[in-house]
């Protein structure tokens, strides 16, 4: 039995290293495996002229919007609405406008996060992100969602709205963020 303070010999170090590896696998392994399973599948989907999004595996186009122009991707109970609009303000102003003009008119109850998260796309464009929860239309369960607004210097902007029934958002959030941050603005 070593006395307190005496350094352990080599073999005693091994269990500690093994444990560190085990902890790392448990904590980060899911992201690695999830990332490996989450590959782009299929061709890019055009949202509007010059704006495309690449669906990850499992996500499929489920519809189109006219005003504003956009597309809905879906994966089970998870959805991602992406719209493209001409806009030259700040990403936060775009988020506020989307909440006011798209979400609020259809909501019976709506709570929007006070904290606005600044984001940056893979191509370096600035964006803003908020979360919300609310009751919409005739849906019986609350809807949780996450809105990200990205503004390009060319005056084209994209708003992505990933949403699903309560409890589902956390399982699509990674995909929603990955697809949003990889959106191509021409």
């Amino acid at each position, binding site marked *: 039995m070593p006395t*307190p303070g005496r350094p352990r010999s080599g073999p005693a170090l091994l269990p500690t290293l093994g444990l560190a590896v085990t902890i790392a696998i*448990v904590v980060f392994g899911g992201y690695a495996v*999830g990332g490996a399973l989450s590959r782009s599948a299929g061709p890019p989907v055009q949202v509007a002229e010059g704006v495309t999004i690449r669906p990850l595996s499992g996500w499929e186009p489920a519809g189109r919007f006219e005003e504003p122009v956009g597309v809905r991707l879906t994966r089970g109970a998870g959805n991602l609405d992406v719209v493209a609009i001409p806009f030259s303000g700040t990403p936060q102003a775009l988020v506020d406008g989307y909440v006011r003009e798209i979400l609020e008119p259809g909501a019976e109850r709506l709570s929007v996060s006070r904290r606005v998260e600044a984001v940056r796309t893979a191509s370096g464009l600035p964006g803003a992100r908020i979360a919300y929860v609310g009751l919409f239309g005739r849906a019986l369960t609350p809807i949780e969602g996450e809105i990200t607004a990205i503004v390009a210097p060319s005056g084209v902007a994209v708003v992505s709205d990933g949403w699903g029934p309560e409890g589902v958002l956390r399982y699509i959030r990674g995909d929603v963020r990955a697809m949003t941050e990889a959106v191509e603005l021409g």
Partner: protein
Amino acid sequence: MDPLPPPPPPARHRWAARGTLFRPREPAFALFAAILLVTGFLAVEQQEVFRELSPSGWALSWVLLALYVLPVVLLVLALDLYEREPVSLMVGAFLWGAVAATTLAAFANEGWGLVVARLGGPEFASRWTAVLTAPLAEEVLKASGIVLLALIAPEEFDDVLDGFVYGALCGLGFAVVEDVFYFVSVFGGTPTGVLAGFWVRVISSGLYGHVLYTGLSGMGIAYFVSRKDEEPLGRRIAVATGLFVAGVAGHVLWNSPLLDAFPAQVRDVWDLLRIPLAAALKGLPLLAFVIVLVRLAHRRERHWLALALRSEAGSEGLTVTELEILLDPVARRRSRRDMRRRAGARAARLLRRLQREQVNLAMARTRAAGPDDPVLVVKRAYCRSLRDALAAIPGAAPAARGPSDVAPG
């Protein structure tokens, strides 16, 4: 009359060098401290978010949970009949559960939840992640802390009950921080919501859950560490794995829709009362299993103590009556209560010290080369000095030395 100063620690007996968490040159300590430090920052940040969301609900959550922690800690410590574990290790176990395991588990659950979502879809994941990934990830992370403690201070894992103490405290820390999360995020964070959460998660379910799961893992780890000289490696691995799996299985059952009798909504008093009944349905089997294991461990400890002290009874360190009292936890508590009543608190404290030193004498006896081992001689003399000091307190003498109970002078 004052007792002798405690005997100097003899280097060759592991009981004598009191274990501690703070062994900076141990690799396991470095890992333990590094993880606790990093996760500590994240955990404080998380609590800040909860406090901002609902200052009153957050504060009420901690007040209520403090009321829950205190009796559970006392209960866990009361189960450890013969040897009090070092405070630094017990605090370390609690902090690991509360800070490190909860923070790491948040990442792990999200990561593996993504895998479930990729494989089964988001709807499936929202229903089944709590069953498929959380029990294993959380139990591994909590048990890792206990393994680190065992690597830092293996001499403090003398028997399975020691592992139960560390595991239960680790699980308690985890449960408390998880409860704050639930009270604020799931139950709404308002004072009414927090009280509802307290009813569901603590009053109704507080006897089950993380304290038991990690208590079982801790027992397995302690079995593996403490039976090195008695059991073959294969058996030690099998028992440790079996107890860990039992904890995970209990966790899976708790999170699963099986045996789920919880009301979907609470509309009246009957629904409120159904919650503890539903919790008991899921939690009682594991609680009963743990009680059986703890009783078996107690029996083993008592047997070991009797064996160790048989040859000491009648020596200056231990009278025959003292041995009888020492072997019976109820009688031990009663003797201290009687002492307090007859001779006051100081005498009761001194009697407690005498009994603790006599347990230490037992540990020394099992490791001594022979009956005249210098360590034993010193220990006996110390016990005697405590007894003499006790006898000098007015009113204390009769309990300290019975009529048929003469220790050689």
